[in-house]
């Protein structure tokens, strides 16, 4: 296909409203929640990429507050489920109840669960049993729920924003790999900085955030998603993403040493898809019509870290998935230009 035949990039004028909306949304989120602007940016990027997010952090660091604040900014239906060990799948997905109709007949009627919403907050998701955690698999991947042979579509858009405590804590069940893979991002929520804590204590009674001054309408959100679809992902960037994901497998010839020694399973193709979408979202947040290598690098850790499974022995060597991703990013050449043997490029002094 010739260059002229391809769909043109959105013009600056076309992209400006969406970029402005995204920036305003991000600014409002930063205003509601003190500190951690990079986390807010990633959360927004995840939403623009239509991905599910998993926030991990110690209790009280603001995971739920972040999600609640986000729900307030979006004009979307929001429901919250507190995951507990005795939570059953039906408690999330819905259940069939035996009811008596007006005509006096008894029939099984479906009572939708909290998953039938746009924005589902799965609080402390790793406190539920693996069986209950897995109940979300179809909903997260297909956007539908199937019970007693009947598949029911979930409202669009559908996001699962989950929070979890570190698995070392008591009473937690590690999320299954298949479940983890369905989360676009797993974001570490670090404790707030002292400066932000001071601001929080000084300006907010009981830590309650101020009311939002801006709410993103559904139309605006659709416009954002439409703009996302027009963000270009150049072929070299796609190749970079593919090489990154491939190199996360120990069997890859491009895999760095740490991957070969410490990684049991690398990232899935779903990770590559998520990485591409997240890079696009990052470009949109920056107001650019095409994703670049920097966009990939910006979201790579959030996308890949929870999808790379380490060898059991790697833990004893102090190797983390974050370090593996860092090594991957430094080992894989962005452009993938294989220079002739014996030829090197030197930056001009």
């Amino acid at each position, binding site marked *: 296909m010739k260059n002229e035949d391809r769909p043109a990039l959105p013009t*600056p004028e076309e992209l400006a409203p969406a970029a402005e909306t995204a920036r305003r949304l991000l600014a409002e989120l930063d205003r509601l929640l003190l500190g951690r602007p990079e986390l807010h940016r990633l959360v927004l990027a995840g939403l623009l990429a239509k991905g599910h997010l998993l926030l991990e952090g110690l209790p009280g660091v603001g995971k739920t507050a972040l999600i609640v604040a986000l729900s307030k900014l979006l004009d979307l239906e929001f429901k919250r489920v507190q995951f507990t060990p005795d939570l059953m799948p039906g408690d999330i997905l819905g259940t069939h109840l035996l009811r008596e109709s007006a005509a006096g007949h008894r029939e099984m009627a479906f009572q939708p669960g909290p998953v039938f919403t746009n924005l589902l907050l799965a609080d402390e998701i790793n406190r539920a049993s693996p069986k209950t955690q897995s109940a979300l698999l179809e909903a997260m991947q297909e956007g539908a729920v199937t019970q007693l042979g009947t598949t029911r579509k979930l409202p669009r858009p559908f996001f699962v924003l989950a929070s979890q405590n570190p698995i070392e804590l008591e009473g937690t069940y590690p999320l299954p790999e298949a479940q983890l893979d369905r989360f676009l991002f797993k974001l570490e929520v670090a404790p707030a900085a002292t400066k932000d804590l001071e601001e929080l204590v000084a300006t907010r009674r009981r830590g309650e955030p101020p009311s939002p001054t801006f709410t993103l309408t559904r139309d605006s959100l659709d416009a954002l998603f439409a703009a996302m679809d027009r963000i270009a992902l150049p*072929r070299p960037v796609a190749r970079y993403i593919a090489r990154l994901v491939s190199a996360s497998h120990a069997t890859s010839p491009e895999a760095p040493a740490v991957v070969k020694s410490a990684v049991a399973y690398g990232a899935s193709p779903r990770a590559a898809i998520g990485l591409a979408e997240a890079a696009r979202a990052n470009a949109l947040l920056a107001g650019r019509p095409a994703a670049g290598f920097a966009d990939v690098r910006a979201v790579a850790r959030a996308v890949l870290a929870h999808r790379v499974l380490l060898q059991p022995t790697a833990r004893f060597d102090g190797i983390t998935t974050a370090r593996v991703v860092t090594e991957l990013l430094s080992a894989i050449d962005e*452009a993938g230009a294989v220079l002739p043997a014996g030829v090197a490029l030197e930056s001009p002094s």
Partner: protein
Amino acid sequence: MNVSSRLSVYESQIDALRLRLGLAGAARAGLVAAWIWGFTWGTLLLVLRLGGLGSAPWLLAATALGALAGVLGWRAYRSRPEALRVRALVDAHSACDGLLMAAAEAPLGGWDTRLPEPRPLPRVRLKDGRSGALAALALAYVLAATLVPVKPLGAAGRLDIASDVARLAGDLEALKEEGVLEPEREESLKDAVEALVRESSGSDPARTWEALDHVEAGVKAAADQAAEKGLATATSLADTEALASALAREGEQLEKDARSAAMQGLAEKVDEARSAAKAAAALPADVARAAREGSLSKEQLESLAAAASGAKKATLDSLKKLASRNLLDAKAVRRASQLDGAPQGQGLASFLDKNRNKEGVEGFCEANRPGKGGTNRGRGDAALAFDGETKEQKERFQEKALPGAEARSLHDSAVVALSTAEPEAAKGGAPAASTLGNTPAAGTNVAPRVLPRHRETVSRYFERTQ
């Protein structure tokens, strides 16, 4: 820079960087081609030179180098990074955030004005020390191979007999010039020399040396024959010269019989010389006839003497040439040098007066040969003949007993050993010494003299043995 032209600048940069990468790859391929060619050609050159081929096909080699470098260089240039990857390189280098890459896939629209200012391209460096070192090594190898002397591989196994062959060829030529060798003989010897050159082998040097000795012996035998013949001719000519000059000088004083015998001897000598060698052909044939008739005049005799002298000189010169090539042994050389002089040619009359027979003429000739004393100063060189009874054999010598060995005084002697053997006189002179040197031999009564300064030593010797 006009913002609208930035994209074209970037496009130029992409093309330029791709070209540079291709050229760098081709240059590196040239280095690889150089060391491959160098080691291959160097080895081939070594084989050629050791195989005895000094003229190597350099033009072909240079063509091969060019072709190899061309093929490898073209392949390297063709395998330069594809444009899209170079574009990605430039995009990342200039922080275009994907815009430059996107421009390859879709029209940029208004975004081309938002491209950042192009940065200078990264430098393309050829960093292949290994290929460079190998290329240098290969070229040094080629250079070293050119310095290897051209020498057949089998040369180490061949025997160097060039000097001997040259000497033999010179000898043959000398023999040919002097007319010593017959053409058939000369041809056979030349063939033998050539076969020797062809078949000389260091693996069996003894055989070569034996063959060389055999040929050399053949040449030497021919030279010896020539020397004998030449010396005989020169002797005849010397005799002719001596006899002719003597007859010219003293012919009138001879009696008729003696003169006739001398003339007869002269005629025989002339015939002998004429038949012996070509050099003697200068002697007039009618002279021998006139000599038999005894009608040679003094002038004719002088002329004959001069002709004989000239012919002898020519014969000796020929022998000298052979001698200069060491083809004559010392005896022949000495004889030739003896003959190289004027004969005495004196005392013919008195000699023939005493020796009228044929042997008398022969004896005169022999005595008057150059280097001899002549007949007038005695025949010191005359051959010894034991055919006659000498005067001394008839005489009886007076017997005279020689005085016996004087008994030595015993006052300064000491008895150092006793013998139980019967004393007896020594027979035929002094007794044989024992292994001790000065101790008397067993069975003798002669006590050796022991000097005083040796007594103690001698005593200790016997004390120890006893």
